[in-house]
């Protein structure tokens, strides 16, 4: 009798563990469009984030350094094709039971939606979905995210930071 109950409990635990590994919104989106040539994809895995510590950080602004050091993964999927259509689809794929709405903005061109996954006062995921007439972007940061710091980044972004970006891009090509 006890063993039967135990089995049931163990079964439930297993189901729980498996469902935790299920895909989130951007995961579903990735799964669907990663092979689609209309989309471009950027993925930086937790493994790569660990490797980032080996890079020279001297030229990286402190705010960015601190923010990056707390990230675990970054995924971006974007397209220039029918941005508003994909914006709608992406929104529909978000399970609002899991995410909390942070920012919703809409004007005549821009559609921006930020949602977060929070537990215990820590924001574990920031998901941005944005579309304007030029393109659609869905971006997911996973880690320990400080929203204030993130909001300050663009303001504190200096010429030096931009130069670094350009350099990186050139190396990329």
């Amino acid at each position: 009798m006890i063993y039967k109950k135990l089995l049931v409990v163990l079964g439930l635990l297993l189901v729980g563990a498996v469902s935790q590994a299920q895909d989130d919104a951007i995961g579903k989106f990735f799964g669907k469009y990663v092979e689609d040539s209309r989309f471009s994809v950027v993925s930086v895995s937790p493994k790569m984030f660990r490797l980032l510590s080996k890079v020279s950080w001297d030229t990286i602004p402190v705010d960015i350094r601190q923010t990056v050091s707390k990230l675990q993964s970054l995924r971006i999927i974007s397209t220039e094709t029918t941005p508003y259509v994909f914006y709608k689809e992406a929104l529909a794929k978000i399970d609002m039971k899991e995410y909390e709405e942070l920012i919703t903005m809409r004007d005549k061109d821009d559609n921006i939606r930020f949602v977060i996954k929070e537990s215990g006062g820590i924001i574990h995921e920031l998901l941005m979905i944005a579309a304007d007439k030029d393109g659609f972007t869905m971006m997911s940061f996973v880690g320990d995210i400080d929203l204030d710091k993130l909001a300050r980044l663009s303001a504190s972004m200096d010429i030096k930071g931009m130069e670094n970006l350009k350099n990186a891009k050139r190396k990329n090509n």
Partner: protein
Amino acid sequence: MEREQVAQLLERYWQVETTVEEEKMLAEYFRGTDVPSEWEPYREIFSFYEQEHEVRPGEGLEERIMEAVRPRPRLRGAWWSAAAVILLLLGLEPLFRVSEEKRVEQRVAVVEDTYDDPQLALAAVQKALLIASRNMNKGLHPLK
């Protein structure tokens, strides 16, 4: 007792019509020595009843029975099994615990790393952060 009378009593005995007194008389008779051989089996029957009558309950039988049927609080056993289950689960817990990092890795595993070079990855992350930051500010201060 006359043979005739005994036969009559026996007849009534098997009809279950005899009184206690009469049954005692029958028992008395069959304990005696002058029982005809065809009634020999009856002697056994009555002496058996007689003997059984002598059986007395053993010492403290009632107490033992009452102890056996006493409604027992099942709680103790229940607590023990609950404790056992909890201990077992605690022991197994590490098997089910998926670290936060593992979970992220599992979720992200859908797509391969875009960059092999950490330097390029960092640049991409930096750019993404700036885009997100700019969009956040757009959302927070739309009139600017």
